[in-house]
């Protein structure tokens, strides 16, 4: 098995296609369900222990990963409500939408729409956090996080 970003789609899956509006707690919870269904593919990368705060325009969603799944999803009213240890993936809705639509269309991101490509120049998406070591969690768990967003291909997302 190789770990190319676009080649691991379609795990155990099964069942009816999930639909949800992005961004919303429900959307992230659906994605967590897909992660659970595809758990075997995440085991190849190793467990996670980190918290992602997704910032979409002025909305905040906290996703806490533990092991091979999502422990919790919360809508935050302010960034200050986030768990102390977290990193932030932020950008305008248009940038998120472009990434998700690209993943959905190609069953995985093309070369220009991986997390690494989209964040390196701090635009259209940006990685941030309370300190550099928290930000470094984005790098340490990168394969799993990319896989997590690849799983969005299995969600019929509306905006």
């Amino acid at each position, binding site marked *: 098995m190789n770990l190319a970003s*676009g080649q691991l789609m379609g795990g155990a899956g099964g069942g009816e296609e999930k639909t949800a509006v992005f961004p919303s707690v429900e959307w992230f919870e659906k994605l967590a369900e897909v992660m659970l269904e595809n758990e075997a593919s995440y085991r190849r990368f190793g467990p996670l222990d980190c918290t992602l705060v997704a910032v979409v325009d002025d909305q905040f969603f906290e996703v806490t990963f533990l092991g091979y799944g999502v422990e919790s999803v919360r809508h935050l009213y302010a960034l200050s409500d986030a768990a102390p240890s977290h990193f932030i993936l932020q950008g305008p809705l248009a940038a998120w939408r472009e990434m998700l639509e690209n993943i959905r269309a190609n069953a995985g991101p093309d*070369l220009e729409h991986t997390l690494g490509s989209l964040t390196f120049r701090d635009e259209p998406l940006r990685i941030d956090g309370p300190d550099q070591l928290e930000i470094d969690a984005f790098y340490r768990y990168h394969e799993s996080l990319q896989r997590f967003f690849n799983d969005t291909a299995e969600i019929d997302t509306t905006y």
Partner: protein
Amino acid sequence: MARHTTIVDTGLDRLREMARGNFSLAWMDSNPSGWGHTSVPGPVGLRLVDVETGHYAKIPERASGRAGLAPRGSYLPETITSPGFYDLNDRSLLWSDNAAGLYDEAVTRQWNSVTDIPWDLLQELPADLEKALCQMCTGLAGIEMVADDVTARWMSRIDRDFHEVKLFLATQVMDEARHTDVFRKRALANGGGLLMDSPCQQQLLSAVIQAPDYTTAGALMHILCEGFSLTLFHAGEFLAPTEVEKTIFRLCMQDEGRHLAYAVRHLEWFLRHHPERAEEIHSILDVGEQAMFQLTLEPQTIEPRAILGGGGLHDIQLGISRLAFLYARQVRDYLRRLKIAGLDREPRISIPVELPLKSLGI
């Protein structure tokens, strides 16, 4: 028949006693304070951090020395004497609280360059891009092997009372070996090959090799060199012409993130115990930064990156301008990591925090 040695005679005497039903069994009750220990696997399995509790989590500030080659927490018979093999035995000089957790993370996030890279997606590239990639891989293969050797050298000197650190460093040795291997493999796999070695890189690596102690070596190798590498790998994914390189950079990036997490927390620990030694760290970073800056602007380093950044030799100047962002980010993240460790390097940094491209008309 040759006469037996005393050792053989003693062993045979013991065997005779056992044949008569006389067993010692002293080992069975030798370690009452360490007996009855249980560990409960968590959701991801049984981690090192799950077993190192109670009696077994007693980490000495200074290794006993007498323990010699014994595992920490075992009973030491009176006859045990230390062979004096380890000379890094002061916890303040090597510890980091996150070492055990990072070890668990490392062993569960291993990958290999044989089957985890989508080599089947290699494709013929324009000559300038292939040469740029191969030159970049030449430099990276060179630096990673030294990271391997230096880590292994220091690891072998650490007393085994601090096995969390030794185990983590062992994973790092494997990581660096894999990086050496994967960059070499990429250079040799697609019609290119290794290109030019770098005198400036040799200079930087010499400083790492000659660092006088574990912590200064770590500050130089991990926080400076690997910090810059991590950002380069993030950029590498942005620059990569195919899925093959993208996957390589992404996987290497994960490994570098762990190495930095240990190095930053170790430096923080060290400076908390030895604040008077901050100047030693500053001094080695003075040397390292100069070498790093020289390396960054050396033709065999900056030009291939610029060709990849610009999309080809014809747009190498555009590539240079794009690299300005990479450099600024490398320096910014490096300073931030040092600050977390308790070293305010910003007033002291000896290289520009940005490349002055605008003033040069680029």
